[in-house]
């Protein structure tokens, strides 16, 4: 018997023996990224640690958060004050939402550190991005995260299968001239030529709605189904739109009514795949149609250079992205990917030095993002990056989630000069009049949850045209009113007015 007990005890002790400490004089700093697809980082970290030993005075460890994991992990780490994680990804749409987490004191205020060690960082990142990160946090107004320089402006485009369009006897100019409300004829032709099971209009319903009505995402609004609309001026995004700087119930405007009426016509005529109107299948269906190029016109929230990305090239047809407006900078886009320092971190200085270096030093950024030369990529004769697909399959972080991507070298598929044009493209983007405004939804949390549920029930099917707006839209609006839409709207508008008055 005693042997048996002893065996159990020994087993338990072996299991409980926790991670062995590595004796080393340099402190270890840990960074947590979002959206990674990394299974082997050993080669990269070895090089990185060699490179940063003197410059940062620390050893780096990385937690490669994935799309599905990050939110849960980040919230746990930050709310539990876990000092083992020093730097954490944050932005306007992740669960550790930048503005609210900074307000709750989970992120360190960086102003002093920027003053002390941030000269290179300030030179590398445009002033406007620093401004976008300046918010009212737990320790007063200041910068609570290093804002990555990426595709910092939003631009929605029609994703056009030009090969098919020309086959049908139309050009991109025809599309533009007819506009969203006049594509019946083209869709009918496509259906006639390609057969009855072909769906020419491949929409991401929520995006299509914003494109047609020229409304934008309001930072701080209910997550996956937005409730508020702020209308842009499509001709000049920096000027006020049709309704001025006023937030409206997205679903109660004439613009929305016109949009859903038209979508319903297209849906009834069989131009839209029914799978797109169901939340569970919508994204898969869209990805599949894109892969097969089995669509004529689609919607795409665009980033400069997207036409050169592997998944667009793999469609095997000529694709053109036709913009609805010029790119505009709104709060959501300008806080799209940032790196904050955990306020529980024991190595804030080393962490900041690392972030500053990552955002200003091309060598480090390339190493972290593209991997090691000779293993993950090689340079071709023109000095462009050619990825080694096998090694890259075990090491592909989310490029835009890391920081300043404008200092990355050009890849062969993007072509020489790509990053420079990228930088110019976004540097020239205009800000919307209410740039910087974030709706603090904490006073109306309950309403938001209730409204979100109502919207999840109706919005997608309406936006996709799958249900009749004559009956469903009034029912939807009544349900929203019952769930407290007016309270929500008033709170948002009061905050916006106060923000603009400053």
């Amino acid at each position, binding site marked *: *018997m005693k042997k048996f007990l002893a065996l*159990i005890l020994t*087993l*338990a002790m072996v*299991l*409980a*023996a*926790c*991670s062995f400490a590595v004796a080393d004089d340099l402190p270890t700093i*840990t960074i*947590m990224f979002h*959206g990674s*697809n990394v*299974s082997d980082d050993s080669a990269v970290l070895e090089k990185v640690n060699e490179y940063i030993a003197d410059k940062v005075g620390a050893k780096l*460890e*990385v*937690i*490669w958060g*994935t*799309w*599905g*994991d990050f*939110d*849960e*992990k980040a919230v*746990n780490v930050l709310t*539990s*004050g*876990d000092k*083992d*994680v020093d730097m954490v990804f944050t932005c306007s*749409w992740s669960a550790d939402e930048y503005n609210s987490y900074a307000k709750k004191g989970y992120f360190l205020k960086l102003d002093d550190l920027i003053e002390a060690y941030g000269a290179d960082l300030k030179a590398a990142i445009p002033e406007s991005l620093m401004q976008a990160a300046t918010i009212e946090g737990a320790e007063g107004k200041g910068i609570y995260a290093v804002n990555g320089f990426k*595709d910092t402006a*939003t631009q929605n485009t029609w994703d056009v299968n030009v090969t098919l369009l020309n086959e049908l006897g139309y050009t991109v100019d025809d599309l533009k001239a007819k506009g969203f409300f006049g594509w019946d004829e083209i869709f009918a032709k496509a259906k006639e030529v390609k057969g009855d099971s072909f769906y020419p209009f491949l929409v*991401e319903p*929520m*995006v299509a709605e914003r494109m047609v009505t020229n409304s934008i*995402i309001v930072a701080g609004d209910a997550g*996956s189904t937005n409730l508020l609309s702020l209308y842009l001026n499509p001709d000049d995004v920096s000027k006020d739109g049709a309704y001025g700087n006023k937030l409206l119930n997205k679903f109660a405007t004439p613009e929305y009514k016109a949009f859903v009426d038209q979508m319903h016509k297209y849906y009834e005529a069989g131009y839209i795949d029914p*799978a797109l109107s169901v*939340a569970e299948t919508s*994204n*898969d269906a869209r*990805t*599949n149609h*894109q*892969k*097969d190029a089995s669509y004529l016109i689609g919607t*795409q*929230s665009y*980033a400069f250079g*997207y036409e050169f*990305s*592997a*998944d667009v090239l*793999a469609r095997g047809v000529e694709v053109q992205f036709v913009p609805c407006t010029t790119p505009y900078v709104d709060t*959501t886009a300008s806080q799209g990917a940032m790196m904050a320092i955990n306020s529980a971190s024991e190595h804030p200085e080393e962490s900041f030095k690392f972030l500053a270096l990552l955002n200003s030093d091309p060598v480090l950024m390339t190493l972290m993002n593209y991997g090691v030369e000779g293993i993950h990529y090689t340079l071709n004769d023109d000095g462009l990056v050619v990825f080694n697909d096998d090694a890259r399959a075990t090491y*592909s972080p*989310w490029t*835009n989630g890391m920081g300043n991507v404008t200092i990355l070298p050009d890849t062969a598929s993007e072509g020489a000069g790509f990053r420079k044009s990228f930088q110019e493209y976004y540097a020239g983007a205009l800000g919307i009049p209410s740039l910087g405004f974030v709706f603090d939804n904490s006073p109306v949390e309950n309403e938001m949850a209730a409204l979100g549920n109502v919207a999840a029930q109706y919005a997608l099917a309406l936006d996709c045209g799958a249900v009749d707006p004559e009956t469903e839209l009034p029912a939807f609006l009544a349900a929203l009113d019952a769930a407290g839409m007016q309270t929500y709207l008033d709170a948002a508008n009061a905050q916006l007015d106060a923000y603009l008055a400053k």
Partner: protein
Amino acid sequence: MTAITPPARKKIKAGSFSLNRFSTRTQALFHVILLLFSLLCIIPFIFVIIIAFSSEDSIRQIGYSFTPISWSTDAFAYTFKLGNALWRSYLNSFLITIVGTVLSVAMTVLYAYPLYRRDYKYRKFFNFLSFFTMIFGGGLVPTYVICKSVLGLSDNYAALIVPMLFSPFNVIIMRTFLQTTVPPELIEAATIDGSGEYSTLLRIVLPVVKPGIATIALLVSLAYWNEWFLSLLYLNKNMSIMPLQYLLMRMQRNADFLAKNSSMLGADASKAAAQLPSQSLKMALVVFIVIPIACAYPFFQRYVIAGLTIGSVKG
């Protein structure tokens, strides 16, 4: 019931009548019902296997179907290409399940046995101590803090085993099982015959409660085999110890997240979605996950059924 009141016109052959016998018609009915029920259970799994062998084109064109346009073994070929990552996580799943089940069953029995003994003085207190945690949990964040900072459960196998070792629910099942199958007289008899406490537990009580132990072992091993949330919480850097369930769950959660946030992420979401593993690959992994547990089931089942029919006191 039907056997007792057979239709009057039916002739009963001598010797074929028995109280415990069902009429042929009832038997046929039961067979049909049970057949339908087993079909309901097995069809989804057959469907999963069919999808795993469907070609990606077929899934893209007609969705999931029992009769795909074309077949392919690409998904399985790809799982073998995943190589180390797959087999390692498969081994991890086995290791975690086996070690976890053995330890957890040992703990459950050792905790439940004193609670069953009426002569144990602090019975009520320990009963309450375990029962209390069933009603009031600490919540996610405090649990995480205790496990990670106090117990050091982070990036090691212990993190995937220790948090689930003790389940008050299983202790209650075990205690009740002891109470109903082991009469106190049996313990008394053993004590009078000179058996010490350990020997009473091991030689007298345990053989009697084998079916109960098998039930607990089944519950616990299923829980360990299907567990992925602990990996999400406690595995950060050392991904080589991740179990298969988590590998699968991660693919699923990535796809869900991208679907939900595609409008926020824009082009990045489209790029990431294009890299996601195919539907047939996911189903191939499901096949990998289901097979071992389906094979283990019959062994446990023998004991579970035995538990219904035997006991230490007949009658």
